[in-house]
C-alpha cells in the first residue's frame, strides 16, 4: 500500500514537473535606458515566457511575449538556432583555475555550467517612459512565477539631460556566502530604508562569485543573497579575477557573460564597444565607464584603451565615474606597486582617465576600504604623494571642506579613488600604506554615492550600519588646481 502511494506521488510530481516550469533564478534587471529595460530570469524546464507590467501594481496592463530571447543549457534538445548557455570546452579548461587545481575531481556541469534543463529568458521591454516606475511579473503562460507585489518594480533611466538626484550602491569582493557578506548587505539595506531615499542602481566592482565564478557560485553567492535588490534595481557589473577563472573577456563567454546582458551598442548612453567586457552608460548627466581590468590588453593602444579614449572624448555629462576591478592604488590585501594588473591600470589607463576628466574611480580586488585625497597624475611606481595631490584635506563638508573641481568636465582636475573590496567575501588585510589615501579602513562594508546637481557625497557604511567614512566633491565655477607641496600623509603601519 505504502509503495503504491509513493509511486502515485512520484507520478504526480513528475507529471507536474513536465508541465510546469520551476523558477530557478529570480528576475533581475539589466541594461536600463530611458525607454527600455531587460528583465532576466531562469526556469528549469520548458516555459512559455511572458512579462506583464504597468505603472500601477493593481493593473499590469501591458504584456510582452515576443521580445524575449531564450537561451538554454546545452543539454536541452532545442533547435540549433536557439543560443546556448556556456558549455565548457577542452581548451577553456586549460585556463580554468578550478580545473587546474584538481583536474581529476573537476566536473564541468557541477562546477561551472548551468544546471541541466536550464532556460534563461531575457525580455526586453520597449517604448517605456523615462524615469518612470513600472511594476512587473514574470509568467509561464498563465502561471505567475514571480512578481506582482510591491517589491517587483523597475525604474527607467531619466533622460540623458536630466539632473535628477541619483543614489548608487557600490559593493565589491562580496560573493562567498559568509556572514560578513549578509551583514554588510543587511546594514546597507537598513541604512537606505532609514534614510528614506531608495537606490537607483547597484554597481558591483567584481568578485561577486567566489572562488571561480561558476554558474552555481553566481546563483548561491550573488543572485540569491541580493535578490531583494536585484529585482528592482539595475545592476551594472565589472568582471573580477575570480569570475575570470571561468570566463573570457576577449570572447565574452563564461558564466559571468551568461549572467549579464550589458549594453554593447551604446544603447544606454555611451559609445558602442561591441563587447560586454567594457561598456558605458549614462544616467541623467552622469556618465559611467566600466572596464575589464582582468584579462584584456590594458596597453594604451589596445582595443579597450582606444575605446575608452573615444568614449571619454565623446562624453557629454556633468559627472564621470569609472569602474573596474583591479585598483590602480592600493596597499590592502594587494599591492599596486608590485602586481602587474594593478600597475598597468595605473600606468596605462589612469593617464586616459585623468585627461578625460573623470571624477571618481570605483574598484575592488584588495580586501580593504581605501579612499584617496584628490589626485592627478600619479603614475609612478612606487606611488608617491609628492606632486600628485591637488587637495590633501579630508574631503568633508564638516571637516576640511569638500574636494572642489570646476563645473563641467576638465582634464587633470583630479579623481577620488575608492577601493571597495570589503564587501564580505574575503579576509580584510593591509600590507602597507598607500600614500595618496586619506582613509584606510579595515572593516567590511559597502559604499553609497549620492549625486545631486553639482555635489557628490560618498559614504562608507560598515557591516554594523555605521558611517565609517564620508566625503564630498563639489563641481562649481572655475577652480584652479595645483599639486600640494608636502601633502598630508596617512599614518604608516608600525612594521613599515
Amino acid at each position, binding site marked *: 500500500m505504502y509503495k503504491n502511494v509513493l509511486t502515485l506521488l512520484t507520478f504526480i510530481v513528475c507529471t507536474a514537473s513536465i508541465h510546469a516550469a520551476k523558477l530557478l533564478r529570480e528576475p533581475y534587471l539589466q541594461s536600463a535606458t530611458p525607454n527600455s529595460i531587460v528583465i532576466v530570469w531562469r526556469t528549469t524546464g520548458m516555459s512559455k515566457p511572458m512579462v506583464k507590467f504597468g505603472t500601477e501594481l493593481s493593473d499590469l496592463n501591458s504584456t510582452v511575449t515576443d521580445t524575449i530571447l531564450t537561451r538554454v543549457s546545452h543539454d536541452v534538445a532545442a533547435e540549433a538556432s536557439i543560443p546556448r548557455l556556456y558549455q565548457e570546452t577542452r581548451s577553456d579548461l*586549460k585556463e580554468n583555475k578550478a580545473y587546474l*587545481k*584538481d583536474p581529476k575531481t573537476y566536473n564541468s556541469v557541477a562546477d561551472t555550467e548551468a544546471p541541466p534543463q536550464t532556460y534563461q529568458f531575457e525580455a526586453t521591454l520597449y517604448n517605456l517612459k523615462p524615469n518612470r516606475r513600472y511594476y512587473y511579473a514574470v509568467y509561464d503562460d498563465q502561471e505567475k512565477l514571480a512578481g506582482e507585489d510591491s517589491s517587483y518594480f523597475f525604474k527607467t533611466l531619466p533622460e540623458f539631460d536630466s539632473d535628477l538626484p541619483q543614489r548608487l550602491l557600490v559593493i565589491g569582493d562580496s560573493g562567498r556566502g559568509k556572514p560578513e557578506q549578509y551583514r554588510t548587505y543587511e546594514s546597507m539595506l537598513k541604512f537606505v530604508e532609514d534614510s528614506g531615499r531608495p537606490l537607483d542602481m547597484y554597481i558591483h566592482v567584481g568578485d561577486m562569485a567566489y572562488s571561480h565564478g561558476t554558474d552555481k557560485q553566481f546563483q548561491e553567492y550573488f543572485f540569491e543573497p541580493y535578490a531583494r535588490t536585484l529585482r528592482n534595481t539595475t545592476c551594472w557589473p565589472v568582471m573580477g579575477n575570480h569570475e575570470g577563472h571561468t570566463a573570457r573577456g576577449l570572447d565574452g563567454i563564461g558564466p559571468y557573460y551568461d549572467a549579464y546582458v550589458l549594453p554593447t551598442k*551604446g544603447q544606454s548612453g555611451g559609445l558602442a564597444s561591441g563587447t560586454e567586457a567594457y561598456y558605458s552608460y549614462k544616467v541623467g548627466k552622469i556618465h559611467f565607464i566600466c572596464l575589464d581590468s582582468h584579462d584584456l590588453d590594458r596597453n594604451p593602444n589596445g582595443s579597450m584603451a582606444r575605446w575608452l579614449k573615444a568614449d571619454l572624448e565623446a562624453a557629454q555629462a556633468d559627472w564621470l565615474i569609472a569602474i573596474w576591478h583591479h585598483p590602480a592604488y592600493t596597499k590592502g590585501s594587494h599591492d599596486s606597486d608590485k602586481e602587474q594588473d594593478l600597475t598597468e591600470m595605473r600606468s596605462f589607463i589612469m593617464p586616459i582617465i585623468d585627461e578625460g576628466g573623470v571624477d571618481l574611480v570605483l574598484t575592488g580586488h584588495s580586501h580593504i576600504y581605501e579612499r584617496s585625497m584628490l589626485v592627478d597624475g600619479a603614475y609612478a611606481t612606487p606611488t608617491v604623494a609628492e606632486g600628485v595631490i591637488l587637495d590633501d584635506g579630508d574631503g568633508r563638508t564638516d571637516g576640511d571642506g569638500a574636494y572642489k573641481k570646476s563645473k563641467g568636465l576638465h582634464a587633470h582636475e583630479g579623481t577620488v579613488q575608492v577601493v571597495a573590496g570589503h564587501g564580505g567575501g574575503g579576509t580584510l588585510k593591509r600590507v602597507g600604506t598607500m600614500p595618496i589615501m586619506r582613509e584606510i579602513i579595515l572593516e567590511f562594508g559597502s559604499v553609497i554615492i549620492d549625486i545631486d546637481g553639482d555635489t557628490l557625497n560618498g559614504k562608507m557604511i560598515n557591516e554594523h550600519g555605521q558611517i565609517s567614512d564620508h566625503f564630498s566633491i563639489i563641481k562649481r565655477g572655475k577652480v584652479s588646481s595645483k599639486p600640494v607641496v608636502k601633502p598630508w600623509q596617512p599614518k604608516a603601519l608600525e612594521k613599515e
Partner: protein
Amino acid sequence: MNLFFRISLLIASTSLTLQAHPAPTERIESLSKQLATSAVHTYALIDRGYEYLSIYRYREALSDFQLASALEPQQLESLLGECKAHLAMNESTAVIQKLQMALLKPTLEASCKNSMLVLLSLAYEKEQSWQKVLAITKSLVVQNNVNIDTLLRHSLALHKCQKHSERRDFLIQARVLHSSVLLDHDYIDTLIDLQQWDEALPLVEAKCTASRWKSSWWIRRAQIYFGLHQDAAAKQDLSKSLEELLARLNQNNLRYDLWIERALTLDMLDRRDEAKHILTWLIEQDVPTHQLDPILSRLKAT
C-alpha cells in the same frame, strides 16, 4: 599523480581559498613549499608560472612553464604560458618557433588553435611582419563568432599592408555585424586613406560636432580640406587642434598619443622643427615605433 601531493595541494588551496584570494607573492610562496616538499606537479608549476608572470618575474615564469612542458609535452597550457612569458620579454622569435611547431599537430581543437594563432599574430606584430599578421587575421575573421579584437587587428593589418580598398570593404561588412565605435573610426580613416574626401567629410563633420574633445577630428578634417584644396580651412582646424591639445596636456601627461597628435598638427602646419623636437622626445621616452608611424611616415614623406 602522487596522492600525498594531491591531498596536500588540495589542503593548501582550500586554506588559501577560505582566507581570501592571496596576493601573488603569497601564492608563490605556498606553491613553492608544496613543490619543494613533494613530487613536482604540472598544474602547480603552471599556476606558479602565471603568478610569476603577474609580478613581472618573466624568467622564473618561463622556467616553470618549460618544466611543466617537459613533464607533460602534450599539455598545451604550459606551451601557451611559455609563449606569454616570451612575449612579455619581447622574445617573439621563440614564440614563433614554438607555435609553428605546435600548430602542425593534427589533433588540435579549433578554439585552442585559434588561441595559438592569436598569440602568433601578436608575435608577428612585434616583429612588424604585417603580411604574416594579415594572413592569420584573415583566417580568423572568416570564422563565426570572431571577437572585436580580431576584427580590429585585421583592420590594422590591412592598413599596415596598404590594402585600403580591401580594408574599406571589410569594414563595411564588419560594421553591419558588430557595433563598435572603433570599427566606425577605422572606416573613416580608410576613406581618408583612399582620398574619398566627399564620403569622409560628413562623417568627420558629425564627429567634430558631437565630440567633447575634438583635436583628432579637426586633424582628420584638415587632411580632407587639404585634399579638397581648401588650405585656409585646414589651417584653421589645425590651429584649433593645437589650442585644445595645449589644454589637455600637462607635465605629468603620459598620453603619448596626444603628443603624437600635437607633432602631427605642427608638421601639417609646416612647423617641422617643433614636430621633430616632440618626435625626438617621444623616442627618448621609448614609445614603440609603430605608435609613431603616423608622424614618422609623414616626416619621411616631406
